[in-house]
């Protein structure tokens, strides 16, 4: 049978699809048995190692596994892998990412689509909130774009908000590089919580496919696994482990991004944060990180310096194509930068009469300095000064 998976890989993949087998238990079993013996052990056809036997005594795990470890489960896994061209990397194998091998809690079995060679360069994790502000989204895609242009691999989680825009930025950089026929930009890498053939969120189906095609999609969950809540912190651990530097663009003071930050700090990985206005709730988490001593990121050079790729003299990327503002407009923009605002707030904070305010915002919108989303205005900033 010519197959996408070797027998060893298939046995390990099937093991990971058993109920209640977390990364820890899987690692324990595969530590004392090779995958095929381990599969025989859970089926009851082979004698378990003492440690494994003790594990299988817990809460009737052994019986549950024996009931589930059937040939049809194996065939199901194989079928799903074939259909979605999902590959498996075992920790003992050569194609397993080297950066994960020495981790404190590496996944024993890693599923991936695309090419893991994407990870064979400098790597930056980029994370943040699902409900991002417009300027957060622009900042993310801008940073990701610049990093990819500089050959740095951007790793993110394919979630809504910041994650998605990080991938968008990388994909745009590849488009641009391939158009100019110069060296190819770094490839995008997505680390997801669900099985690789289970697209979540659904609206990211295109993005999901594009990332897998251009770079790699990685998951610890077996194909077909739904995005259950417990899988997300586990995913965050892999994302942190794969990164050399972790950048938080916009985050509230708790939530998934903060879990990833904790995982990164456990591993002594540098965490950088993009500061925001104290008025902006979506930046509460990143501001807290800066307060605690994380270095702030205001443009891509800050990340490159953290990676030891100081190229501030090499090129002049921080060019803003927008026309400079007149003094009065610059003053107004400086007043309103930060949190999104309504026209009401604009008038009250700046004291500009309503009719003039309307003209002013209309002009700034035309120049690309502000944007309107469903009635809320935001100043678009790239970290440069306004005047």
């Amino acid at each position: 049978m010519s197959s996408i998976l070797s027998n060893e890989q298939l046995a390990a993949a099937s093991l990971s699809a058993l109920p209640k087998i977390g990364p820890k238990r899987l690692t324990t079993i595969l530590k004392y048995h090779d995958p095929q013996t381990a599969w025989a052990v859970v089926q009851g056809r082979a004698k378990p190692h003492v440690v494994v036997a003790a594990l299988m005594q817990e809460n009737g795990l052994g019986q549950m596994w024996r009931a589930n470890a059937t040939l049809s489960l194996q065939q199901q896994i194989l079928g799903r892998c074939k259909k979605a061209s999902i590959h498996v990397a075992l920790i003992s194998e050569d194609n397993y990412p080297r950066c994960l091998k020495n981790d404190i809690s590496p996944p024993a079995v890693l599923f991936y689509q695309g090419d893991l060679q994407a990870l064979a360069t400098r790597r930056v994790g980029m994370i943040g909130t699902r409900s991002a502000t417009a300027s957060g989204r622009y900042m993310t895609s801008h940073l990701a774009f610049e990093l990819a242009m500089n050959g740095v691999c951007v790793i993110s989680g394919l979630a809504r908000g910041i994650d998605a825009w990080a991938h968008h930025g990388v994909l745009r950089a590849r488009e641009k590089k391939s158009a100019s026929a110069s060296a190819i930009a770094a490839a995008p890498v997505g680390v997801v919580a669900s099985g690789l053939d289970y697209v979540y969120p659904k609206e990211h189906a295109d993005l999901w496919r594009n990332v897998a095609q251009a770079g790699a999609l990685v998951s610890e969950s077996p194909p077909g696994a739904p995005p259950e809540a417990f899988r997300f912190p586990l995913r965050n651990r892999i994302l942190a482990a794969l990164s050399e530097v972790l950048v938080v663009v916009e985050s509230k003071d708790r939530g998934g991004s903060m879990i990833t930050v904790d995982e990164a700090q456990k591993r002594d990985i540098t965490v950088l944060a993009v500061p925001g206005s104290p008025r902006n709730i979506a930046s509460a988490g990143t501001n807290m990180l800066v307060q605690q001593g994380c270095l702030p990121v205001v443009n891509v050079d800050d990340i490159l310096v953290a990676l030891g790729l100081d190229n501030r003299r090499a090129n002049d990327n921080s060019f803003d194509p927008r026309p400079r503002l007149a003094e009065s407009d610059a003053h107004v923009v400086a007043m309103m930068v930060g949190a999104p605002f309504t026209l009401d707030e604009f008038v009250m904070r700046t004291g500009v009469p309503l009719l003039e305010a309307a003209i002013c915002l209309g002009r700034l919108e035309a120049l690309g300095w502000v944007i309107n989303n469903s009635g809320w205005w935001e100043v678009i900033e790239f970290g440069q000064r306004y005047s």
Partner: protein
Amino acid sequence: MFASVRSATLLGVRGSRVDVEVHAGIGLPGFTVVGQPDEVCRESRDRVRAALLSCGLPWPTRRVTVNLAPTGDRKSGACLDLAIAIGLLAAQEVVAIDALANFAFVAELGLDGSLRPVRGATPLVLALTDRMAVVAPENLAEAGAATPAQVYSAKNLLDVVECLSGRADWQCSKSFDLNSGQSTSLNRDVGADATALNSRDLADVQGHPVARRALEIAAAGAHHLLLVGPPGAGKTMLAERLVGLLPPLTDDEAISTTMVHSSVQLESPNAGLIRRAPYRAPHHSSSMVSMVGGGTALMRPGEISLASNGVLFLDELGEFAPSVLDALRQPLEQGIVRLARARTSVVMPAKFLLVAATNPCPCGEGTPGVCTCDDAARARYLRRFSGPLLDRFDLRVAVSRPNTNELLSPERGESTSEVAKRVANARQIAFARFKCANSALTREQLDAVAPLSKKAEQRLRRELEAGHLTGRGYHRVRRVARTVADLNGAPEVVDDAHLNLALMMRVDLASGLRSRELVF
């Protein structure tokens, strides 16, 4: 013997004449009502008999047939009681038949013979202007509100008989003169909370400079207004204050509004013509019938007719049934609602100013970065409002929560009376042009009266090219800009500033959902 007495019944918001023909002939004693009476109408036989006997008047011991002509239409309600009783008396020659030729009778009878008020006195009497209408004393003011003729009244059936034979004098309504407007009962408010509404002044509103201006523009140009904002931002408070900005109703408007309100509920005894714009705020569980009208054989007017010439406020727009909201579209366009049923069809006024309030998304916050809704949930929420309905709101304004400083500030805003002055002024300018509010200008009229300055034209061109405006939206923006210019004392050309404000007050609710071009 035979007698014919004039009366009227209510259909929709209009009275229709009914001739009550009474025939008392030879045969077994009996009493039949023919000519499509409804249940209440048929029961009048027992009320009339008791009333006659209580007053010591004779009940015929003959075969009595009462015919309600025209027989083709269905008759509803108890307003024919008095006419039937008078007809019976005339058929027995207690009352002279000749004396009835100039009279019409619209009242319900109590068992003791007293005259009781009926719903819809104003439209009923208005259908009987060629006769001297007799109503219950409680109905006198309401009945006389809109008719140029005098209206008469007496306490009970016996008094009516005395008055008809000239032995006593009628109680009369004040002579009504539209032009003098002297009567004290002329300026009255509508609804139970009318006085409460009166005391609601714009001066109470802290902050909200944009929403205040939006109210002013809405009132001046009759533009429909949508307020979008988080809970507690003050959307309801603002909407309640719009009605105070509208000018008093004109004669025609006042009569039409009074007719609608009269046909729905009994007014207080000293009710007169409604001069102030009505305000209706139906709950979001309201049914289709309660909104557009219909329901019974009477074809009761709905909330949109009750709000005619005034404000219809729909709080929590997204919670209304989609079918109810879409039913508003045709009345919004035509200013009337035409209801057709198998037996009848009626036309009722529905020229209202629509004000609606909604949250921007399911969590209510809306502000990017604070809102916890994902895009799919927000898209689903927005799908509750059909595009054509949203398109009819010329003004769509985001309202934010006032901050602590504004709430505690002792400074009061402009009062309703000051703003109302500007509104009246702008309305005058608008009506002097084409006798209609700016929102009703046709495209040709718009080109004639709202020429754009060079800058304004460029701005509009940019919006159109960016795909932010549709063809219809383009004209709507120009109408709003026309009103803004009127309010700012620029009756000629529409300037860049006016146009910008009109554009800012036309929030695209879905714009946050579209991913935009990336900027690098």
